[in-house]
Protein backbone atom coordinates (compact mmCIF):
# COMPACT_ATOMS: atom_id res chain seq x y z
CA UNK A 1 0.00 0.00 0.00
CA UNK A 2 1.22 3.38 -0.90
CA UNK A 3 0.90 5.03 2.50
CA UNK A 4 2.97 2.22 3.99
CA UNK A 5 5.68 2.66 1.37
CA UNK A 6 5.66 6.37 2.00
CA UNK A 7 5.97 5.83 5.73
CA UNK A 8 8.88 3.44 5.19
CA UNK A 9 10.69 5.85 2.91
CA UNK A 10 10.09 8.57 5.44
CA UNK A 11 11.61 6.40 8.17
CA UNK A 12 14.67 5.71 6.06
CA UNK A 13 15.15 9.39 5.36
CA UNK A 14 14.74 10.13 9.04
CA UNK A 15 17.26 7.48 9.99
CA UNK A 16 19.82 8.77 7.51
CA UNK A 17 19.25 12.34 8.66
CA UNK A 18 19.57 11.26 12.29
CA UNK A 19 22.79 9.45 11.43
CA UNK A 20 24.27 12.53 9.78
CA UNK A 21 23.16 14.64 12.67
CA UNK A 22 24.68 12.20 15.14
CA UNK A 23 28.00 12.53 13.36
CA UNK A 24 27.74 16.28 13.48
CA UNK A 25 26.70 16.33 17.13
CA UNK A 26 29.56 14.09 18.00
CA UNK A 27 31.92 16.82 16.84
CA UNK A 28 30.95 19.13 19.67
CA UNK A 29 31.36 17.67 23.11
CA UNK A 30 30.84 19.81 26.17
CA UNK A 31 34.01 21.46 27.39
CA UNK A 32 34.48 20.91 31.12
CA UNK A 33 33.57 23.89 33.27
CA UNK A 34 36.43 25.59 35.05
CA UNK A 35 36.63 27.44 38.33
CA UNK A 36 36.17 31.11 37.38
CA UNK A 37 39.70 32.50 36.91
CA UNK A 38 40.75 35.36 39.16
CA UNK A 39 40.84 38.75 37.45
CA UNK A 40 44.50 39.17 38.35
CA UNK A 41 45.39 35.98 36.51
CA UNK A 42 45.14 37.88 33.20
CA UNK A 43 47.89 39.96 31.67
CA UNK A 44 46.83 43.64 31.90
CA UNK A 45 48.21 44.31 28.41
CA UNK A 46 45.97 41.58 27.05
CA UNK A 47 42.94 43.00 28.89
CA UNK A 48 43.66 46.42 27.43
CA UNK A 49 43.97 45.05 23.92
CA UNK A 50 40.75 43.15 24.49
CA UNK A 51 38.94 46.38 25.36
CA UNK A 52 39.76 47.83 21.95
CA UNK A 53 38.78 44.58 20.24
CA UNK A 54 35.45 44.50 22.06
CA UNK A 55 34.82 48.02 20.74
CA UNK A 56 35.58 46.89 17.19
CA UNK A 57 33.24 43.92 17.62
CA UNK A 58 30.55 46.06 19.30
CA UNK A 59 29.99 43.21 21.75
CA UNK A 60 28.39 45.57 24.26
CA UNK A 61 25.76 46.75 21.79
CA UNK A 62 23.94 43.42 21.48
CA UNK A 63 24.98 41.97 24.82
CA UNK A 64 23.51 44.84 26.85
CA UNK A 65 19.76 45.28 27.34
CA UNK A 66 18.42 48.86 27.13
CA UNK A 67 19.18 50.42 30.50
CA UNK A 68 20.76 47.15 31.67
CA UNK A 69 24.22 46.27 32.95
CA UNK A 70 26.99 46.09 30.37
CA UNK A 71 27.51 42.64 28.78
CA UNK A 72 24.74 41.06 30.89
CA UNK A 73 22.68 40.26 27.78
CA UNK A 74 18.91 40.14 27.45
CA UNK A 75 18.58 42.46 24.48
CA UNK A 76 16.15 41.27 21.84
CA UNK A 77 17.74 40.88 18.43
CA UNK A 78 14.85 40.93 15.97
CA UNK A 79 15.32 38.64 12.95
CA UNK A 80 12.90 37.68 10.19
CA UNK A 81 12.52 34.34 11.98
CA UNK A 82 11.74 35.65 15.44
CA UNK A 83 13.46 37.35 18.33
CA UNK A 84 16.71 36.03 19.72
CA UNK A 85 17.88 37.31 23.09
CA UNK A 86 21.53 38.08 23.65
CA UNK A 87 23.31 36.14 26.36
CA UNK A 88 25.15 37.18 29.49
CA UNK A 89 28.87 37.37 28.67
CA UNK A 90 29.97 38.68 32.04
CA UNK A 91 32.07 36.20 34.08
CA UNK A 92 29.15 35.28 36.35
CA UNK A 93 29.65 31.54 37.03
CA UNK A 94 25.96 30.58 36.95
CA UNK A 95 24.36 32.83 34.30
CA UNK A 96 27.37 34.17 32.39
CA UNK A 97 30.60 32.74 30.97
CA UNK A 98 32.44 32.52 34.30
CA UNK A 99 32.97 28.76 33.92
CA UNK A 100 34.05 28.95 30.29
CA UNK A 101 37.67 28.05 29.62
CA UNK A 102 39.70 29.90 27.02
CA UNK A 103 39.22 26.92 24.73
CA UNK A 104 35.43 27.10 25.14
CA UNK A 105 35.43 30.81 24.34
CA UNK A 106 37.61 30.29 21.31
CA UNK A 107 35.38 27.48 20.06
CA UNK A 108 32.31 29.70 20.37
CA UNK A 109 34.01 32.40 18.34
CA UNK A 110 35.30 30.06 15.66
CA UNK A 111 32.49 27.50 15.35
CA UNK A 112 29.41 29.06 16.98
CA UNK A 113 29.13 26.44 19.69
CA UNK A 114 28.40 26.90 23.38
CA UNK A 115 30.56 25.52 26.19
CA UNK A 116 28.04 22.71 26.67
CA UNK A 117 28.28 21.80 22.98
CA UNK A 118 24.92 23.26 21.90
CA UNK A 119 24.77 25.36 18.75
CA UNK A 120 24.54 29.14 18.89
CA UNK A 121 22.43 31.09 16.41
CA UNK A 122 24.21 33.28 13.85
CA UNK A 123 22.55 36.38 15.35
CA UNK A 124 25.86 35.97 17.15
CA UNK A 125 27.91 36.56 13.99
CA UNK A 126 30.32 33.66 14.34
CA UNK A 127 30.36 33.39 10.55
CA UNK A 128 32.51 36.56 10.84
CA UNK A 129 34.13 35.92 14.21
CA UNK A 130 35.57 32.67 12.91
CA UNK A 131 38.20 34.84 11.18
CA UNK A 132 39.48 36.23 14.50
CA UNK A 133 43.00 35.06 15.41
CA UNK A 134 43.71 32.93 18.47
CA UNK A 135 45.65 35.81 19.91
CA UNK A 136 42.77 38.25 19.60
CA UNK A 137 40.32 35.67 20.94
CA UNK A 138 42.55 35.39 23.99
CA UNK A 139 42.58 39.15 24.45
CA UNK A 140 38.78 39.31 24.10
CA UNK A 141 38.50 36.52 26.65
CA UNK A 142 40.87 38.33 29.03
CA UNK A 143 38.80 41.51 28.79
CA UNK A 144 35.41 39.85 29.23
CA UNK A 145 36.57 37.61 32.09
CA UNK A 146 37.78 40.65 34.02
CA UNK A 147 34.44 42.50 33.87
CA UNK A 148 32.12 42.71 36.86
CA UNK A 149 30.10 39.50 37.03
CA UNK A 150 26.38 40.19 36.71
CA UNK A 151 23.77 37.63 37.64
CA UNK A 152 21.31 37.73 34.75
CA UNK A 153 19.61 34.50 33.66
CA UNK A 154 19.14 34.08 29.91
CA UNK A 155 15.89 35.21 28.32
CA UNK A 156 14.29 32.42 26.24
CA UNK A 157 14.38 33.03 22.49
CA UNK A 158 11.15 33.40 20.58
CA UNK A 159 11.69 31.19 17.58
CA UNK A 160 9.15 28.96 15.84
CA UNK A 161 9.60 25.23 15.35
CA UNK A 162 11.90 23.84 13.96
CA UNK A 163 14.28 26.77 14.46
CA UNK A 164 13.88 26.51 18.20
CA UNK A 165 15.85 23.27 17.95
CA UNK A 166 19.46 24.42 17.99
CA UNK A 167 20.57 21.31 16.17
CA UNK A 168 19.21 22.69 12.89
CA UNK A 169 22.13 25.12 12.95
CA UNK A 170 24.47 22.22 12.21
CA UNK A 171 23.00 22.14 8.71
CA UNK A 172 23.24 25.91 8.40
CA UNK A 173 26.88 25.75 9.44
CA UNK A 174 27.63 23.06 6.85
CA UNK A 175 26.21 25.34 4.18
CA UNK A 176 27.38 28.77 5.28
CA UNK A 177 30.16 28.61 7.85
CA UNK A 178 33.70 28.57 6.57
CA UNK A 179 35.60 28.13 9.80
CA UNK A 180 39.17 29.20 10.28
CA UNK A 181 41.13 32.34 11.09
CA UNK A 182 41.90 34.99 8.47
CA UNK A 183 44.82 34.23 6.19
CA UNK A 184 46.65 37.29 4.93
CA UNK A 185 46.65 37.99 1.21
CA UNK A 186 50.29 38.32 0.25
CA UNK A 187 49.39 40.49 -2.75
CA UNK A 188 48.45 43.33 -0.38
CA UNK A 189 50.26 45.19 2.36
CA UNK A 190 49.78 44.76 6.09
CA UNK A 191 47.40 47.72 6.47
CA UNK A 192 45.06 46.38 3.78
CA UNK A 193 45.07 42.94 5.35
CA UNK A 194 44.40 44.48 8.74
CA UNK A 195 41.41 46.29 7.23
CA UNK A 196 39.91 43.12 5.74
CA UNK A 197 40.60 41.22 8.94
CA UNK A 198 38.76 43.77 11.08
CA UNK A 199 35.92 44.59 8.68
CA UNK A 200 35.08 41.03 7.68
CA UNK A 201 36.02 39.45 11.01
CA UNK A 202 35.42 41.03 14.37
CA UNK A 203 33.82 44.18 12.92
CA UNK A 204 31.20 42.01 11.13
CA UNK A 205 30.14 44.97 8.95
CA UNK A 206 28.55 42.58 6.46
CA UNK A 207 26.14 41.29 9.09
CA UNK A 208 24.04 44.37 8.38
CA UNK A 209 25.47 45.75 5.14
CA UNK A 210 25.21 42.54 3.10
CA UNK A 211 21.79 41.23 2.08
CA UNK A 212 20.76 37.81 3.40
CA UNK A 213 19.20 34.83 1.66
CA UNK A 214 16.04 33.00 2.71
CA UNK A 215 17.96 31.00 5.28
CA UNK A 216 19.33 34.14 6.86
CA UNK A 217 22.86 33.73 5.54
CA UNK A 218 24.76 36.55 3.89
CA UNK A 219 24.74 36.55 0.10
CA UNK A 220 28.49 36.47 -0.46
CA UNK A 221 27.88 37.19 -4.14
CA UNK A 222 26.31 40.51 -3.08
CA UNK A 223 28.82 41.44 -0.40
CA UNK A 224 28.20 44.94 0.98
CA UNK A 225 25.24 45.57 -1.33
CA UNK A 226 23.17 46.82 1.60
CA UNK A 227 20.69 45.19 3.95
CA UNK A 228 17.75 45.81 6.25
CA UNK A 229 18.20 45.59 9.98
CA UNK A 230 15.99 46.51 12.92
CA UNK A 231 13.77 48.65 10.74
CA UNK A 232 16.64 50.56 9.17
CA UNK A 233 18.38 50.31 5.83
CA UNK A 234 22.08 49.53 6.17
CA UNK A 235 23.38 51.24 3.05
CA UNK A 236 25.50 49.54 0.45
CA UNK A 237 29.22 49.81 1.15
CA UNK A 238 30.26 48.95 -2.38
CA UNK A 239 29.81 50.73 -5.70
CA UNK A 240 26.04 50.77 -5.02
CA UNK A 241 26.52 53.23 -2.14
CA UNK A 242 23.74 55.82 -2.40
CA UNK A 243 25.82 58.58 -0.81
CA UNK A 244 25.45 61.66 -3.02
CA UNK A 245 29.07 62.58 -2.27
CA UNK A 246 31.33 59.55 -2.67
CA UNK A 247 32.94 58.46 0.56
CA UNK A 248 36.67 58.51 1.04
CA UNK A 249 38.80 57.12 3.85
CA UNK A 250 39.12 60.47 5.67
CA UNK A 251 35.34 61.02 5.67
CA UNK A 252 34.76 57.48 6.90
CA UNK A 253 37.26 57.90 9.71
CA UNK A 254 35.47 61.03 10.93
CA UNK A 255 32.05 59.41 10.59
CA UNK A 256 32.99 56.24 12.43
CA UNK A 257 34.73 58.14 15.19
CA UNK A 258 32.28 60.94 15.88
CA UNK A 259 29.04 59.47 14.56
CA UNK A 260 28.57 62.14 11.86
CA UNK A 261 30.39 63.67 8.95
CA UNK A 262 29.52 66.98 7.41
CA UNK A 263 29.15 65.92 3.79
CA UNK A 264 27.34 62.64 4.56
CA UNK A 265 25.27 63.08 7.69
CA UNK A 266 24.65 61.39 10.99
CA UNK A 267 24.88 57.76 12.09
CA UNK A 268 21.46 56.76 13.37
CA UNK A 269 19.60 53.66 14.48
CA UNK A 270 21.92 50.69 15.01
CA UNK A 271 24.80 52.51 13.28
CA UNK A 272 24.78 55.15 16.00
CA UNK A 273 25.61 52.41 18.49
CA UNK A 274 28.39 51.10 16.29
CA UNK A 275 29.94 54.56 16.00
CA UNK A 276 29.46 54.97 19.73
CA UNK A 277 32.08 52.28 20.29
CA UNK A 278 34.56 53.05 17.57
CA UNK A 279 36.25 56.07 19.14
CA UNK A 280 37.84 53.58 21.55
CA UNK A 281 39.85 51.79 18.89
CA UNK A 282 43.50 52.42 17.97
CA UNK A 283 44.05 55.02 15.26
CA UNK A 284 45.85 52.53 13.02
CA UNK A 285 42.93 50.13 13.16
CA UNK A 286 40.49 52.93 12.32
CA UNK A 287 42.71 53.90 9.40
CA UNK A 288 42.79 50.31 8.14
CA UNK A 289 39.01 49.90 8.44
CA UNK A 290 38.27 53.19 6.67
CA UNK A 291 40.78 52.50 3.92
CA UNK A 292 39.35 49.07 3.14
CA UNK A 293 35.71 50.18 3.21
CA UNK A 294 36.46 53.24 1.06
CA UNK A 295 38.16 50.94 -1.40
CA UNK A 296 34.98 48.84 -1.69
CA UNK A 297 33.01 51.96 -2.68
CA UNK A 298 35.65 53.37 -4.95
CA UNK A 299 33.86 52.73 -8.21
CA UNK A 300 31.33 55.48 -7.66
CA UNK A 301 29.53 56.62 -10.76
CA UNK A 302 31.19 59.79 -12.08
CA UNK A 303 27.93 61.74 -12.35
CA UNK A 304 27.68 61.70 -8.59
CA UNK A 305 30.66 64.03 -8.43
CA UNK A 306 28.32 66.79 -9.55
CA UNK A 307 26.77 66.77 -6.11
CA UNK A 308 30.08 67.69 -4.55
CA UNK A 309 28.99 71.28 -5.18
CA UNK A 310 26.50 70.67 -2.43
CA UNK A 311 29.34 70.10 0.01
CA UNK A 312 30.85 73.41 -0.91
CA UNK A 313 27.56 75.12 -0.21
CA UNK A 314 27.43 73.34 3.13
CA UNK A 315 30.91 74.58 3.99
CA UNK A 316 30.07 78.14 3.02
CA UNK A 317 26.96 77.98 5.15
CA UNK A 318 28.99 76.81 8.13
CA UNK A 319 31.62 79.46 7.75
CA UNK A 320 29.34 82.45 7.32
CA UNK A 321 27.01 81.13 9.99
CA UNK A 322 27.61 83.53 12.86
CA UNK A 323 26.96 86.63 10.82
CA UNK A 324 23.98 85.34 8.92
CA UNK A 325 21.45 84.57 11.61
CA UNK A 326 18.60 85.56 9.32
CA UNK A 327 19.59 83.18 6.57
CA UNK A 328 17.30 80.41 7.67
CA UNK A 329 14.17 82.26 6.80
CA UNK A 330 15.59 83.74 3.62
CA UNK A 331 16.61 80.28 2.46
CA UNK A 332 13.28 78.79 3.42
CA UNK A 333 11.80 80.88 0.66
CA UNK A 334 13.60 78.68 -1.85
CA UNK A 335 10.63 76.41 -1.49
CA UNK A 336 8.09 78.99 -2.63
CA UNK A 337 8.05 77.67 -6.20
CA UNK A 338 6.13 74.64 -4.98
CA UNK A 339 3.84 76.49 -2.61
CA UNK A 340 0.84 74.32 -3.31
CA UNK A 341 2.63 71.09 -2.53
CA UNK A 342 1.75 69.98 0.99
CA UNK A 343 5.20 68.43 1.43
CA UNK A 344 6.94 71.60 0.27
CA UNK A 345 5.00 73.69 2.78
CA UNK A 346 5.90 71.27 5.56
CA UNK A 347 9.55 71.31 4.51
CA UNK A 348 9.67 75.10 4.53
CA UNK A 349 7.93 75.37 7.88
CA UNK A 350 9.33 72.42 9.79
CA UNK A 351 12.67 71.45 8.21
CA UNK A 352 14.31 74.37 6.42
CA UNK A 353 14.94 76.38 9.60
CA UNK A 354 17.69 73.93 10.55
CA UNK A 355 18.47 72.19 7.27
CA UNK A 356 18.94 75.46 5.40
CA UNK A 357 19.89 77.48 8.46
CA UNK A 358 23.15 79.25 9.11
CA UNK A 359 24.79 76.43 11.07
CA UNK A 360 26.50 73.36 9.63
CA UNK A 361 26.70 69.95 11.31
CA UNK A 362 26.90 69.10 14.14
CA UNK A 363 25.04 72.19 15.41
CA UNK A 364 22.70 72.62 12.47
CA UNK A 365 21.01 70.24 10.07
CA UNK A 366 22.73 68.73 7.07
CA UNK A 367 21.87 70.07 3.66
CA UNK A 368 19.39 67.46 2.51
CA UNK A 369 20.99 67.08 -0.88
CA UNK A 370 23.88 65.38 0.90
CA UNK A 371 22.10 62.67 2.86
CA UNK A 372 21.87 59.05 1.75
CA UNK A 373 18.50 58.78 3.49
CA UNK A 374 16.76 60.57 0.60
CA UNK A 375 18.57 58.85 -2.26
CA UNK A 376 18.55 55.43 -0.59
CA UNK A 377 16.76 52.30 -1.77
CA UNK A 378 13.83 52.52 0.66
CA UNK A 379 11.97 55.26 2.49
CA UNK A 380 12.48 53.58 5.87
CA UNK A 381 15.40 55.59 7.17
CA UNK A 382 13.93 58.92 6.15
CA UNK A 383 10.56 58.01 7.65
CA UNK A 384 12.18 56.84 10.90
CA UNK A 385 14.12 60.05 11.23
CA UNK A 386 11.15 62.32 10.44
CA UNK A 387 9.00 60.53 13.01
CA UNK A 388 11.47 59.97 15.81
CA UNK A 389 14.33 62.39 15.16
CA UNK A 390 17.80 62.04 16.57
CA UNK A 391 17.67 61.76 20.34
CA UNK A 392 20.14 63.75 22.38
CA UNK A 393 23.43 62.10 23.23
CA UNK A 394 24.45 62.22 26.86
CA UNK A 395 27.33 64.58 27.61
CA UNK A 396 28.48 64.93 24.03
CA UNK A 397 28.39 67.50 21.29
CA UNK A 398 26.49 65.43 18.77
CA UNK A 399 23.72 66.31 16.32
CA UNK A 400 20.15 66.11 17.56
CA UNK A 401 16.85 66.47 15.75
CA UNK A 402 13.32 66.64 17.12
CA UNK A 403 10.93 63.97 15.89
CA UNK A 404 7.63 64.92 14.27
CA UNK A 405 5.53 61.89 15.18
CA UNK A 406 3.20 64.06 17.25
CA UNK A 407 2.85 66.91 14.79
CA UNK A 408 2.27 65.00 11.55
CA UNK A 409 -0.25 62.34 10.64
CA UNK A 410 0.67 59.52 8.27
CA UNK A 411 -0.51 61.35 5.16
CA UNK A 412 1.49 64.44 6.10
CA UNK A 413 4.66 62.42 6.69
CA UNK A 414 4.14 60.68 3.36
CA UNK A 415 3.66 64.00 1.55
CA UNK A 416 6.85 65.38 3.07
CA UNK A 417 8.87 62.26 2.26
CA UNK A 418 7.57 62.26 -1.32
CA UNK A 419 8.54 65.90 -1.71
CA UNK A 420 12.03 65.42 -0.24
CA UNK A 421 12.71 62.51 -2.59
CA UNK A 422 11.62 64.52 -5.60
CA UNK A 423 13.48 67.67 -4.64
CA UNK A 424 16.74 66.34 -3.19
CA UNK A 425 17.53 63.23 -5.20
CA UNK A 426 17.66 62.27 -8.83
CA UNK A 427 16.03 58.89 -8.13
CA UNK A 428 12.49 57.96 -9.05
CA UNK A 429 9.70 58.12 -6.45
CA UNK A 430 9.46 55.47 -3.75
CA UNK A 431 6.39 53.29 -4.08
CA UNK A 432 6.21 52.00 -0.52
CA UNK A 433 5.99 55.24 1.47
CA UNK A 434 2.55 54.72 3.01
CA UNK A 435 3.45 51.25 4.23
CA UNK A 436 6.80 52.46 5.52
CA UNK A 437 5.12 55.22 7.54
CA UNK A 438 2.51 52.84 8.87
CA UNK A 439 5.07 50.21 9.84
CA UNK A 440 7.30 52.71 11.60
CA UNK A 441 4.35 54.26 13.42
CA UNK A 442 2.97 50.92 14.53
CA UNK A 443 6.47 49.83 15.46
CA UNK A 444 6.02 46.86 13.15
CA UNK A 445 9.65 47.23 12.22
CA UNK A 446 11.20 48.41 15.53
CA UNK A 447 12.88 51.59 14.34
CA UNK A 448 14.82 52.12 17.55
CA UNK A 449 16.21 55.66 17.33
CA UNK A 450 19.09 54.85 19.61
CA UNK A 451 21.42 57.69 20.46
CA UNK A 452 25.12 56.98 20.35
CA UNK A 453 25.42 57.08 24.11
CA UNK A 454 29.17 57.07 24.43
CA UNK A 455 30.20 58.69 21.18
CA UNK A 456 33.31 60.80 21.45
CA UNK A 457 32.47 64.48 21.85
CA UNK A 458 33.43 66.31 18.71
CA UNK A 459 36.23 68.75 19.43
CA UNK A 460 35.38 72.29 18.33
CA UNK A 461 36.81 73.40 15.04
CA UNK A 462 37.72 69.99 13.67
CA UNK A 463 34.52 69.46 11.77
CA UNK A 464 35.66 71.09 8.58
CA UNK A 465 39.25 69.85 8.36
CA UNK A 466 38.49 66.25 9.12
CA UNK A 467 36.66 65.56 5.89
CA UNK A 468 39.05 67.35 3.63
Amino acid at each position, binding site marked *: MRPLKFALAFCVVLAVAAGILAIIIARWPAIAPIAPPAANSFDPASVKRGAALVAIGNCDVCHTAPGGRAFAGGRAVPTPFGSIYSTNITPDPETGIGRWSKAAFQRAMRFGVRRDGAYLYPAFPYDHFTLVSDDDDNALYAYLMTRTPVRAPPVPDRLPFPLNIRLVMSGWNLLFLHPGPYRADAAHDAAWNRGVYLVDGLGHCGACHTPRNLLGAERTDLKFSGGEVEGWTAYALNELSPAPVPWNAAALRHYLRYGWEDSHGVARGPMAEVAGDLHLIPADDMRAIAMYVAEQMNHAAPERDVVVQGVERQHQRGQSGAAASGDGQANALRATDTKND*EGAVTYAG*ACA*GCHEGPRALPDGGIDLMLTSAIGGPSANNLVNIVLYGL*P*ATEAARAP*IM*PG*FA*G*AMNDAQVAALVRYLRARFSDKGPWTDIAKSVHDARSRARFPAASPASVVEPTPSGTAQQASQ
Partner: protein
Amino acid sequence: MKLNVNGNQHDVDVDPRTPLLYVLRGDLKLIAAKFGCGLGQCGACTVLVDGEPVFSCITPIALLADKQITTLEGLGTPERPAPIQRAFIEAQAAQCGYCIPGIMMRAHALLQKNPRASEADIRAFLEPHLCRCGTHMRILRAIHRAQAEMTPANAGGSG
Protein backbone atom coordinates in the same frame (compact mmCIF):
# COMPACT_ATOMS: atom_id res chain seq x y z
CA MET B 1 -7.15 78.89 7.62
CA LYS B 2 -9.07 77.56 10.61
CA LEU B 3 -7.34 76.51 13.80
CA ASN B 4 -8.98 74.82 16.77
CA VAL B 5 -7.24 76.06 19.90
CA ASN B 6 -8.46 75.12 23.36
CA GLY B 7 -11.83 74.18 21.92
CA ASN B 8 -12.35 77.46 20.05
CA GLN B 9 -12.30 77.86 16.27
CA HIS B 10 -10.04 80.67 15.07
CA ASP B 11 -9.80 82.00 11.56
CA VAL B 12 -6.24 83.10 10.93
CA ASP B 13 -4.93 84.76 7.82
CA VAL B 14 -1.24 83.84 7.78
CA ASP B 15 1.18 81.96 5.55
CA PRO B 16 0.59 78.20 6.08
CA ARG B 17 4.32 77.74 6.71
CA THR B 18 4.16 79.96 9.80
CA PRO B 19 5.13 78.16 13.00
CA LEU B 20 2.20 77.56 15.33
CA LEU B 21 4.05 79.36 18.13
CA TYR B 22 4.00 82.66 16.22
CA VAL B 23 0.28 82.34 15.58
CA LEU B 24 -0.46 81.48 19.21
CA ARG B 25 1.56 84.35 20.65
CA GLY B 26 1.26 86.95 17.88
CA ASP B 27 -2.23 86.46 16.52
CA LEU B 28 -4.18 84.73 19.26
CA LYS B 29 -2.32 86.38 22.17
CA LEU B 30 -1.94 83.06 23.94
CA ILE B 31 1.48 83.69 25.46
CA ALA B 32 2.00 80.72 27.79
CA ALA B 33 4.07 78.85 25.20
CA LYS B 34 7.50 80.48 25.00
CA PHE B 35 10.03 81.08 22.27
CA GLY B 36 13.24 79.46 23.49
CA CYS B 37 15.56 78.15 20.80
CA GLY B 38 13.30 78.16 17.77
CA LEU B 39 14.83 74.81 16.75
CA GLY B 40 12.75 72.28 18.68
CA GLN B 41 15.59 71.58 21.08
CA CYS B 42 14.61 73.22 24.39
CA GLY B 43 10.93 72.41 24.85
CA ALA B 44 9.76 75.87 26.02
CA CYS B 45 7.24 76.12 23.17
CA THR B 46 5.57 72.74 23.80
CA VAL B 47 1.79 72.53 23.28
CA LEU B 48 -0.49 69.57 22.63
CA VAL B 49 -1.79 68.57 19.21
CA ASP B 50 -4.48 65.91 19.50
CA GLY B 51 -3.08 65.16 22.94
CA GLU B 52 0.52 64.69 21.75
CA PRO B 53 3.20 67.13 22.88
CA VAL B 54 4.78 68.99 19.95
CA PHE B 55 7.28 71.81 19.61
CA SER B 56 5.12 74.65 18.34
CA CYS B 57 8.16 76.63 17.14
CA ILE B 58 8.83 74.13 14.35
CA THR B 59 5.26 73.06 13.60
CA PRO B 60 3.87 74.93 10.59
CA ILE B 61 0.17 75.60 10.91
CA ALA B 62 -0.37 73.89 7.55
CA LEU B 63 -0.12 70.62 9.48
CA LEU B 64 -2.86 71.53 11.92
CA ALA B 65 -6.12 71.72 10.00
CA ASP B 66 -8.74 69.54 11.70
CA LYS B 67 -6.54 68.94 14.75
CA GLN B 68 -7.17 69.96 18.34
CA ILE B 69 -4.52 72.28 19.75
CA THR B 70 -4.25 72.67 23.52
CA THR B 71 -2.14 75.31 25.24
CA LEU B 72 -1.55 75.88 28.92
CA GLU B 73 -4.41 78.39 28.86
CA GLY B 74 -6.67 75.54 27.82
CA LEU B 75 -5.90 73.43 30.88
CA GLY B 76 -7.09 75.86 33.53
CA THR B 77 -7.31 79.48 34.60
CA PRO B 78 -5.69 81.38 37.49
CA GLU B 79 -9.00 81.05 39.31
CA ARG B 80 -9.51 77.40 38.45
CA PRO B 81 -6.09 75.85 37.76
CA ALA B 82 -5.84 72.32 36.41
CA PRO B 83 -4.29 69.67 38.70
CA ILE B 84 -0.91 69.97 36.94
CA GLN B 85 -0.95 73.76 37.35
CA ARG B 86 -2.01 73.60 40.99
CA ALA B 87 0.72 71.06 41.69
CA PHE B 88 3.40 73.25 40.10
CA ILE B 89 2.23 76.23 42.19
CA GLU B 90 2.09 74.23 45.40
CA ALA B 91 5.50 72.65 44.82
CA GLN B 92 6.90 76.07 43.83
CA ALA B 93 8.42 74.35 40.83
CA ALA B 94 9.11 77.56 38.88
CA GLN B 95 12.29 79.57 39.35
CA CYS B 96 12.35 81.96 36.40
CA GLY B 97 9.46 79.97 34.96
CA TYR B 98 10.36 80.24 31.28
CA CYS B 99 10.51 76.50 30.67
CA ILE B 100 7.61 75.62 32.94
CA PRO B 101 4.61 75.97 30.57
CA GLY B 102 6.20 73.57 28.11
CA ILE B 103 7.10 71.11 30.84
CA MET B 104 3.58 71.27 32.27
CA MET B 105 2.11 70.47 28.86
CA ARG B 106 4.32 67.43 28.33
CA ALA B 107 3.76 66.22 31.90
CA HIS B 108 0.02 66.67 31.46
CA ALA B 109 0.11 64.62 28.25
CA LEU B 110 2.04 61.85 29.99
CA LEU B 111 -0.34 61.67 32.96
CA GLN B 112 -3.35 61.63 30.66
CA LYS B 113 -1.95 58.64 28.82
CA ASN B 114 -0.25 56.88 31.70
CA PRO B 115 -1.53 57.97 35.10
CA ARG B 116 0.74 55.44 36.77
CA ALA B 117 3.92 56.66 35.10
CA SER B 118 6.96 55.78 37.19
CA GLU B 119 9.72 58.17 38.17
CA ALA B 120 11.81 56.66 35.37
CA ASP B 121 8.95 57.11 32.87
CA ILE B 122 8.59 60.76 33.85
CA ARG B 123 12.30 61.48 33.58
CA ALA B 124 12.54 59.79 30.20
CA PHE B 125 9.45 61.51 28.84
CA LEU B 126 10.63 64.97 29.93
CA GLU B 127 14.05 64.48 28.36
CA PRO B 128 13.35 67.01 25.56
CA HIS B 129 13.04 69.89 28.05
CA LEU B 130 15.81 72.15 29.28
CA CYS B 131 15.63 74.11 32.55
CA ARG B 132 18.58 76.40 33.18
CA CYS B 133 17.54 77.36 36.72
CA GLY B 134 17.99 73.78 37.84
CA THR B 135 14.61 73.22 39.47
CA HIS B 136 14.40 69.69 38.12
CA MET B 137 13.80 68.11 41.52
CA ARG B 138 10.94 70.47 42.29
CA ILE B 139 9.49 69.85 38.84
CA LEU B 140 9.54 66.12 39.48
CA ARG B 141 7.91 66.61 42.89
CA ALA B 142 5.20 68.73 41.28
CA ILE B 143 4.47 66.06 38.68
CA HIS B 144 4.20 63.38 41.37
CA ARG B 145 1.86 65.68 43.28
CA ALA B 146 -0.32 66.15 40.20
CA GLN B 147 -0.22 62.41 39.61
CA ALA B 148 -1.52 61.72 43.10
CA GLU B 149 -4.30 64.25 42.64
CA MET B 150 -5.31 63.02 39.19
CA THR B 151 -5.51 59.38 40.29
CA PRO B 152 -7.01 59.37 43.78
CA ALA B 153 -6.91 55.58 43.93
CA ASN B 154 -3.14 55.83 43.74
CA ALA B 155 -2.72 58.55 46.34
CA GLY B 156 -2.69 56.37 49.43
CA GLY B 157 0.01 54.02 48.28
CA SER B 158 2.49 56.42 46.79
CA GLY B 159 3.23 58.55 49.88
